[in-house]
């Protein structure tokens, strides 16, 4: 969260504490509604700031919320047309970035415990990870399922099939020529460290950009 948003949020809390029950309830409902429609954080706080100040002044003058805002639904719906919203793509990226961090941290744990030979807390023992066919397939299925469910691409099936073709080919070649039909066979070996670093960098970059939205 960036500084401007934090500052606004603090001020909003301050004003809200001075509002009566009806007004603060209205503000809460408005925030929830706008938040639900994925209004960007900064704009949400800005609108919150304007409206809570307006309501506060009205409260001092003895006018009530309905007199100031009118119909709450209508107000929110017209407001929504005027404020920028987070794109769907951005929201999925955000979700993915957290998944990235989780993977990076768990890999980090596995890597460090192996590196320092901490046998008693080391469960995975994976400095060099052997990427098996099953692993890649499962990974593909999970990612594919995520994308299909969320309609990230216009043609998710296509994406899924295209990405899987090389994998299946590789698998079949192995089967026919190397005669090693085994779900667990190792596709390639990778060192985990660069992976961890890349994942962390990706997450950091996303956070940096996200703060500016």
């Amino acid at each position: 969260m960036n500084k401007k948003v934090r500052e606004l949020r603090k001020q909003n809390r301050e004003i809200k504490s001075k509002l009566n029950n009806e007004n603060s309830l209205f503000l809460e409902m408005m925030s929830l509604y706008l938040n639900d429609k994925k209004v960007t954080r900064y704009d949400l706080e800005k609108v919150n700031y304007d409206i809570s100040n307006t309501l506060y002044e009205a409260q001092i003058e003895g006018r009530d919320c309905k007199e100031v805002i009118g119909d709450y639904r209508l107000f929110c719906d017209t407001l929504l047309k005027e404020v920028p919203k987070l794109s769907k793509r951005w929201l999925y990226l955000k979700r993915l970035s957290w998944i990235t961090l989780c993977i990076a941290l768990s890999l980090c744990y596995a890597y460090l415990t192996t590196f320092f030979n901490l046998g008693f807390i080391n469960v995975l023992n994976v400095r060099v990870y052997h990427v098996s066919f099953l692993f890649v397939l499962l990974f593909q299925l999970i990612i594919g399922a995520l994308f299909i469910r969320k309609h990230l691409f216009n043609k998710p099936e296509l994406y899924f099939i295209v990405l899987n073709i090389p994998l299946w080919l590789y698998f079949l070649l192995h089967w026919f020529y190397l005669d090693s039909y085994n779900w667990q066979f190792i596709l390639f070996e990778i060192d985990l460290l660069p992976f961890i670093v890349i994942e962390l960098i990706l997450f950091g970059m996303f956070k940096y950009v996200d703060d500016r939205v």
Partner: protein
Amino acid sequence: MIPSQMLKGVLEGCILSIISKKERYGYEISQELEKYGFGHIVEGTIYPLLLRLEKNDLVISTYIQSDFGPKRKYYSLSEKGKIELKLFKLNYEEMSNAVNSLIYKDGE
């Protein structure tokens, strides 16, 4: 009371006209509108319009501390807003002439 559908098209221009005379905040604008016979238009109707005007750089807003606590958001016209207001006046004149000549002069 003027039906909201009819008001929709002209309210923006009217708000521009109100703030062209003097810097105003939301409640003042609502009161001004009432004074001119628009009926009671709540701030909840005006605020989204002002947001749009602000987004399109037609108005500029500044926060000014009021005497008894809360901050007021004062709106004033930008250069682009002045041009828009002139345009609105021209368009409105054209429309009102057309409507007037249709319903009053013609055929009666």
